[in-house]
């Protein structure tokens, strides 16, 4: 098995290079306003991917055998549900427990498990998030409205070009007997990045 951590520079695929080339030429020519472009792209962030991820999480909550496969080889377990990324990209599932909370950061917009989470949110790519997530994760979580018990350890995972992390949040209490579909509706994008928690079941 090769060491996935030994790449110390960034990689862009041939396709990404061509898209970036177009984007910068058109921006310089004044044909494209990058801010307007970002705004439009942002509207797609929440559209597709996070539903894929939510299905993975919900299945892991109800199916112990799937859960085991997910933590052994997440790329394969996710592909079982029909969600596949580019070759050579591995997704690693990290499990939130009562004692450990996981949070994912990456400084490159391309380092994001998009087959399961869709397009990265703008804040994920922002300098403040990238720099603060590692240094003061608790402060970042507070900004997202998440407060964890003091004795919960926070692990921050830095994505690489080859390894993307998917946080598997804890199943909300009070959801015994729920279907996968019902459970998937509780799983938010941010809960799979680790900057949020799944929605609580509605009272009553």
């Amino acid at each position, binding site marked *: 098995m090769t060491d996935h951590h030994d*790449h*110390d*520079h*960034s*990689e*862009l*695929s041939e*396709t*990404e*290079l*061509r*898209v*970036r*080339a*177009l*984007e*910068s*030429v*058109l921006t310089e*020519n004044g*044909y*494209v*306003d990058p801010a*307007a*472009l970002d*705004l*439009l*792209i942002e*509207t*797609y962030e929440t*559209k*597709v991917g996070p539903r894929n991820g939510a299905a993975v999480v919900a299945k892991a909550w109800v199916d112990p055998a799937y859960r085991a496969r997910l933590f052994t080889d997440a790329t394969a377990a996710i592909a079982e549900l029909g969600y596949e990324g*580019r070759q050579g990209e591995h997704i690693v599932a990290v499990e939130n427990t009562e004692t450990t909370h996981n949070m994912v950061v*990456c*400084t*490159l*917009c*391309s380092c*994001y498990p*998009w*087959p399961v989470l*869709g*397009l*990265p949110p703008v804040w994920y*790519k922002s*300098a403040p998030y990238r720099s603060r997530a590692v240094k003061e994760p608790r402060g970042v979580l507070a900004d997202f409205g998440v407060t964890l018990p003091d004795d919960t350890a926070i692990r921050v995972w*830095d994505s*690489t*070009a080859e390894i993307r992390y998917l946080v598997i949040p804890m199943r909300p209490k009070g959801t015994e007997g729920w279907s996968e579909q019902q459970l998937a509706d509780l799983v938010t994008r941010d809960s799979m990045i680790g900057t949020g928690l799944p929605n609580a079941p509605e009272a009553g």
Partner: protein
Amino acid sequence: MALDAQAAAEATNALRGLPRDDGGPVFRAPWEAHAFALALALHQRGVFSWSEWATALAAEIKRAQAAGDPDSGETYYQRWLATLERLVADKGVASAETLHRYRDAWNHAADRTPHGKPIELKPEDFER
């Protein structure tokens, strides 16, 4: 006219083959959304009409099929990107040479950028 969901809906209506679900266009990777948004922006600037775009895209798909492309949904945005490149060159917006120079510069920028830092294009990326 703003570059917004309404413009996207208009494009989705005009382009039958566009991968979509009930909520509008869907993308398999971030770059696809970028390529989509770029076409939207150029359309708004009046560089091409959607019917002109559809004709160019169909020609691109035909060319790829002739070269053995299976034309599955997976390659739709590859053809889309090729169409963008062709049209901006045909319309005199940016030549193939310019695009190639920028492509090389981005590659250089990626190479010199340590993992974990945002990749930014700098003037020296063009000097090689």
